[in-house]
């Protein structure tokens, strides 16, 4: 399967296979007017399978969102067909309004206008806890 190369834009690479759509939605790529390609299950030497997203325009990405979803992702910036930059993502120390606290006893459950803030409390285990009630964020 061939996807055209891009002249000016971004290649978000090394996305864990299956997480491409989550990232697409979290970065609101569906709102963009330019071409966006989400390629799933690409063969990879390092990862076995991976997802890749290509964006046909250089846009500002929320690196905190990327880092929170998967800190192993890389972002390549392409200008005039050449790669001019490669960013390695770090696990963000804090994420704001990316995930929501699900603890029904948390103050955010009744005060809707409070920002949902999570702090990184264990880098190795990638543990995030709600700033207010300290409940651990879990995907399920």
């Amino acid at each position, binding site marked *: 399967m061939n996807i055209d190369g891009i002249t000016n834009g971004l290649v978000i690479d090394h996305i864990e296979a299956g997480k491409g759509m989550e990232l697409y939605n979290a970065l609101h790529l569906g709102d963009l007017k330019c071409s966006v390609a989400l390629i799933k299950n690409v063969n990879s030497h390092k990862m076995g399978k991976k997802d890749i997203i290509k964006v046909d325009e250089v846009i500002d990405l929320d690196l905190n969102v990327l880092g929170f979803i998967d800190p192993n992702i890389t972002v390549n910036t392409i200008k005039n067909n050449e790669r001019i930059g490669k960013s390695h993502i770090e696990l963000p120390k804090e994420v704001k309004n990316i995930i929501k606290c699900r*603890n029904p*006893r*948390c*103050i*955010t*459950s*009744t*005060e809707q*206008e*409070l920002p949902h803030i999570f702090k990184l409390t*264990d880098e190795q285990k990638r543990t995030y806890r*709600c*700033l*207010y*009630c*300290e*409940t*651990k964020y879990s995907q399920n």
Partner: protein
Amino acid sequence: MNNLIDILELSTEEIDKLIEVAQDIMAHPDNYYEKCKNKKLATLFFEPSTRTRLSFETAMLDLGGKVIGFSDSNSSSASKGESVADTVRVVGCYADIIAMRHPKEGAPLVASMHAGIPVINAGDGGHNHPTQTLADLLTIKNEKGRLNNLTVGFCGDLKFGRTVHSLINAMSRYEGIKFVLISPDELKLPSYVKNETLREKGIPFEETKDLAAAMPQLDILYMTRVQKERFFNEEDYIRLKDSYILNPEKLVNAREDLTIMHPLPRVNEISVAVDDDPRAAYFKQVKNGKFIRMALIMKLLGIE
């Protein structure tokens, strides 16, 4: 801004200093009766808690200050839908310091971000209750003369008891502490407390269901209430409840210098026959709570 939302915000040095001031207040109360003259404490209690509120209010009155506030959310504008942030912004225009009790976890932290004056967490749901922990630490210091080299037994509901988690966190920072965790399987200490506090810091602990067998090694026995609603069926509750009631028979093998503590209110988990035992310290905890709150109010208001 000076606030106290979580006990771990205080260093052990700061806790030592608070205990020192509280002990001085106990010894020389007259030196403190005008320390907070012209200062006002607002007690914002969004859920009822008579003992904690009275303790804070008495603490402020004994420092010569004044008290305003409300004792349940029906008498505040929260019942009209006002946010915590707006309520404390308004109160910040009247008072010098706030003590807040709220059923929602994290509400006092939100308050501290908006009040413009110091905020003390007087209990936020099942989350934190740092001044109870300070009262516990002062009691241990008064009774034992130290906060290190102690074997501390916790008995009863170790799963939901915030006072237990908070005191374990606070005491884990001292040398030579060992914990004995006495509870039924249904109410064991949550694994995140064991993993993130005890195992991570290499603090020795043992878990047992047998209160009487654990008794001889304890320097401190911290009792909590086993509540009926924590059990899936009444049969289990009835089977277990008596195992965790402290009575003179269970104290037969206890040390002579044991200190018996309880955050109160007690229902039946400590028999009244234990109250006259010189090792019972649970009513002293109440008294100590007022003195440590006096020391805390002074610290947060920057009063020497």
